[in-house]
């Protein structure tokens, strides 16, 4: 059941008052706390996430819940404010005593919640793709990480378009780390970064950047721009006649730019995605039908919303395998390996060493008519990097976020 709101709005608001059926057996419900932004700059990302969670909860409850217990979903809107993320994480964990916490969009919001989750020693699902590296036993990461997105995309782009790359990145952790990953992956391919620019968040004017790109004459652009303001780059580049191929881990399936910008602005944009709405498998088609039935006005089912949906099913699988909602019992299930579910993208599993999720990655491209095509199927890719550098949650809990320039100290 959702908390009722005092004032309901029109159009895009999710349906309130979902009355869960109480099964004859299940006594007290399983409480799931959800913290997603549905106001402010990130509302575009947060609303599909809320919808995904609601759809999953409704489906699971209709089939009898988890171990006969209904799910009670409590959602709070942090309005894009990190302080509110902290306040609400504390509230959900301490006052409402939820069994699991899900949420967070930016890495900053995740890092704001993590100390609180660690101190309360509860379980937390982070459902976004991000720059990778969090080695924390209290967190399960559902989104794709660089070794899944970039180690597939960048070699493909180099092979198809060439070795000269120009990086345009948002000037914060995600941008810097992804740019670093780019450099690392390009080196053995003899790729060359002919230019690298970091743009402060909120900047929307790119004339100088476009000129710099034209000066450097790259083969393709590695786009790591984040936020609505920085997305203006595409329109401005297209107007200036830039017309270069672009590769990005965070466009198309995340912000559905190909639906929002007039063609051919996003022409020749490529990404490696675990989920995109144009995916055409039977499981995906069925999932999309159910989503659009419940949320007919949804402009696009993005990978964040899909991950949010899948996370609920992962939690269900874990609780049923552990026969308990306690974090330690669930972790035992993960440690044994084989914690897998059949998701609309294919089968995905939680890696015991890093508690990140494997994904079925496909390379997608946008053409001049804003249509999405699949150009390559990479199969299932494990989140191997953290295990490789020494993170092993079956043995020790680091509670740290690592990166290529911040590796664990050898023990």
């Amino acid at each position, binding site marked *: 059941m959702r908390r009722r709101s005092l004032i309901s*709005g*029109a*159009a*895009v*608001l999710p349906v309130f008052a979902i009355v869960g059926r109480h099964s004859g057996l299940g006594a007290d419900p399983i409480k799931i706390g959800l913290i997603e932004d549905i*106001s*402010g*700059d990130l*509302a*575009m990302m947060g*609303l599909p996430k809320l919808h995904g969670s609601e759809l999953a909860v409704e489906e699971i409850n209709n089939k009898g819940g988890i171990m006969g217990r209904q799910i009670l979903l409590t959602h709070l809107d942090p309005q894009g404010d990190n302080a509110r993320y902290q306040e609400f994480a504390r509230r959900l964990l301490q006052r409402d005593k939820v069994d699991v916490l899900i949420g967070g969009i930016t890495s900053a919001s995740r890092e704001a919640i993590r100390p609180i989750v660690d101190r309360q020693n509860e379980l937390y699902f982070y459902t976004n793709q991000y720059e990778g590296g969090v080695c924390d036993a209290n967190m399960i990461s559902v989104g794709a990480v660089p070794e899944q997105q970039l180690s597939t995309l960048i070699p493909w782009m180099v092979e198809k378009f060439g070795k000269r790359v120009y990086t345009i990145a948002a*000037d914060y952790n995600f941008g810097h780390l992804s740019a670093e990953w780019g450099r690392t992956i390009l080196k053995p391919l003899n790729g060359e970064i002919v230019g690298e*620019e*970091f*743009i*402060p968040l*909120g*900047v*929307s*004017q790119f*004339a*100088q*950047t*476009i*000129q710099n790109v*034209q*000066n450097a004459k790259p083969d393709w652009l590695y786009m790591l721009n984040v936020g*609505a*303001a920085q*997305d*203006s780059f595409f*329109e*401005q580049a*297209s*107007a*200036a*006649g*830039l017309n270069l191929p672009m590769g990005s881990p965070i466009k198309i399936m995340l912000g559905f730019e190909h*639906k*929002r*910008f*007039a*063609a051919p*602005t996003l022409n020749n944009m490529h990404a490696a995605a675990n989920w995109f709405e144009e995916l055409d498998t039977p499981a995906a088609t069925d999932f999309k039908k159910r989503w659009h039935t419940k949320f007919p*006005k949804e*402009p696009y089912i993005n990978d964040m919303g899909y991950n949010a949906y899948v996370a609920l099913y992962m939690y269900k699988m874990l609780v049923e395998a552990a026969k308990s909602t306690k974090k330690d019992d669930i972790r035992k299930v993960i440690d044994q390996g084989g914690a897998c579910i059949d998701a609309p993208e294919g089968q995905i599993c939680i890696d015991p060493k890093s508690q990140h999720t494997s994904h079925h990655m496909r390379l997608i491209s946008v053409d001049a008519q804003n249509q999405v095509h699949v150009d390559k199927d990479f199969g299932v890719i494990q989140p191997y990097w953290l295990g490789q550098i020494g993170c092993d949650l079956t043995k020790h809990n680091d509670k740290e976020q690592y990166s290529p320039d911040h590796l664990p100290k050898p023990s």
Partner: protein
Amino acid sequence: MFADLFAYFYQFADVFAFLVLSAAGLAVIFGMMGIINMAHGEFIMCGAYVTTFAYHDGLPLPLAQGCGAIAAGAIGVALEATLIRPLYSRPLDSLLVTWGLGLIATQGTLIVLGSSVAGIGTPSGGFRVGGYGFSTYRMILFAASVCVLAFIYLLFMRTRFGVHARATMQNAGMAQALGVRRNRIYALTFGVGAALAGLCGALYAPTMTLIPTMGSTFIVEAFVTVVVGGASVLLGTAPAAVALALIRTGLNGVYGQVFGQIGLLLAVVLIIRVLPQGFSGWLAKRAS
């Protein structure tokens, strides 16, 4: 050689246009009326949204942009009559009211229209000079910014309305005693300021992502340009925009956008330190 010079000019013109267009409406409202309009970004957003909807309904782009500006102006007039008028002697209260209005506008737009709207493509194509491609529309924006400055000058210096408006701002009581319809002047001036903000949104709509909080990307530049310009919109806005555009373009070109942004803010601090009344105060002193 020519290509490089043109490229520098193009960069400068681009930043100059952005500063002038985002600051013009705020300069009129603050400079002429002393109201700190924290909802300035929302008037910009209003202009952008109305333009987009009008365009998608079939109007040609310039007409749609005109609609955007007029819609913002109309809302400005309505707001002025109801909420803003009591606040002329209390500029810091205008900050609070307009901040609240901004919250209502952004969230209301989100609830009613959704979190994003399909955009308009940038019109007019591009042209090449030397090895670079440029967007014609950015040059149109530059031309528009110059026109806006000319319009403000002509409106406030050469029309009867302008004379009345300046008189009212200087000394409302005396102007009223001389027969000026004070409330009408207030409403129209605020409307002009709001319309200019809406025009900014309308002009930039084809180049940007349309979300309810899109106004926030203009706010900082608008405020610093207005304040560096000083109290007089006629004397101050243009030199302030020129100075800040030169600084921003220079830093962008040499050090990149990060230093461009930080450098701009620190330059503002320096300029105000040297010219505590802004450009218009300095120019006024020199003139007298």
